[in-house]
């Protein structure tokens, strides 16, 4: 099915969802790691509009924006496992929650992580409010789309790793089992899927990165660039 390359950073949760999608579909691909402080001319050529990662290159043609890439992978390698359901209403519902994650849940979590004191408390209220909607959506289901995992699990998958690592790094706990029983159960189940388990970034390296971000060394980069590129 052609040559596939993935431009990514080692730590980005948005890149990880694409990695999972490719591996679950059994697609062979080459990884090109980008240094966002020194972007390659290839990246700037393949994503001139946003200049961000991840970018999927299929037979030399780029596809940008991680949710667009996920649907592209699902439609192009369309035999075997499918991520999105067939029913139009179920697809629209999945897309709605994916957008909710990318525009609300993740940014609110990021703000909670990057703030201090009273600002952090306010940010915490917001992320908890967002997570409560997600918790409710998961009610009665093993995975987001039912018995089998799919598109939305890939989208929300960052929850399995990043909040836990941040808690280890700076003692900032978010996902309480009493408040979020559905989410915590899902995290265990999805986290157990071999492809997911085997692809997390190195925890020590992540902890170091989170410390740096909080200590202000990373802050310039993360306020200048959108979180998508992290």
């Amino acid at each position, binding site marked *: 099915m052609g040559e596939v390359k993935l431009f990514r950073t080692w730590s980005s949760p948005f890149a990880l969802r694409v990695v999972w999608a490719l591996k679950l579909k059994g697609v062979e691909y080459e990884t090109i790691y980008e240094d966002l402080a020194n972007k390659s001319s290839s990246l700037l050529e393949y994503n001139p509009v946003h200049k961000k990662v991840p970018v999927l290159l299929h037979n030399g043609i780029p596809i940008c924006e991680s949710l667009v890439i996920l649907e592209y992978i699902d439609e192009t390698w369309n035999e075997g496992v499918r991520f999105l359901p067939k029913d139009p209403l179920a697809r629209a519902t999945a897309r*709605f929650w994916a957008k909710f994650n990318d525009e609300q849940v993740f940014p609110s979590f990021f703000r909670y992580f990057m703030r201090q004191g009273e600002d952090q408390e306010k940010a915490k209220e917001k992320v908890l409010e967002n997570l409560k*909607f997600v918790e409710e959506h998961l009610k009665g289901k093993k995975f987001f789309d039912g018995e089998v995992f799919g598109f939305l699990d890939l989208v929300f998958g960052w929850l399995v790793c990043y909040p836990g690592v941040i808690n280890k790094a700076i003692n900032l706990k978010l996902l309480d089992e009493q408040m979020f029983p559905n989410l915590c159960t899902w995290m265990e189940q999805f986290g157990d899927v071999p492809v997911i388990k085997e692809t997390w970034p190195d925890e020590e390296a992540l902890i170091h990165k989170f410390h740096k971000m909080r200590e202000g060394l990373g802050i310039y980069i993360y306020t200048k660039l959108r979180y998508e590129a992290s």
Partner: protein
Amino acid sequence: MDVSEVVLLDFWASLFCMRVKIALAEKGVQYDCKEENLANKSQLLLQMNPVHKKIPVLIHHGKPISESNIIVQYIDEAWQNKHPPLLPSDPYLKAQARFWADFVDKKVPIICHIFLLRFSIDLICVEKNTQINDGARRIWSTKGEELEKAKREFIEWLNVLEEQLGDKAYLMGESFGYADIAMVPFYCWFYALETIGKMSIEKECPKVVAWMKRCMERESVSKSLPDPHKVYEFRLQKLNNKTT
């Protein structure tokens, strides 16, 4: 088909609702349009979109679909047997259409919002000799540079679309579709933006404006967009209410 099978929770001035109306018209789908009072949202809206409590919401067989670009994709898939298709069938071209609709979603509303909310107060005060309250005076006093910056950013973003258009009739080529539907409602705001910004969008981005006019030749678009003067007056009225 009973029109009440398809219901649109709407607001006449909402750009996002216009996208849905265009898509429904393209597919020839009959529907019941319910106008919402955004200052006093209906129980139906709060029940159908509990997460965001926003319009548009499409209700089909009693089930809600929210977020305008997602609704347009739903319309294309639920009425896939009705011509025309709104998205290409090729996965790569589909990805491109999604990318550009996402680009419009990310960039254009924010800048339009900044433009209209922050700088229209200036215009109201000048046009209507309104008593300027302290808040308006503070905003008014920082106008010049910020307005120029917002204009530059807006034109820069429109120029990305200008370049993508090239010699094409529509954003994805010869056929009108999803990516065009994402952008075309903003055309009814151009008059307001040009008046407030004191600029000609056509002069800066002639291909974008030609594209918008071409889209307006389609009945689905011309019947779904309100009069730009009405939009401008509505904006002024909203801001006038905020400053008195």
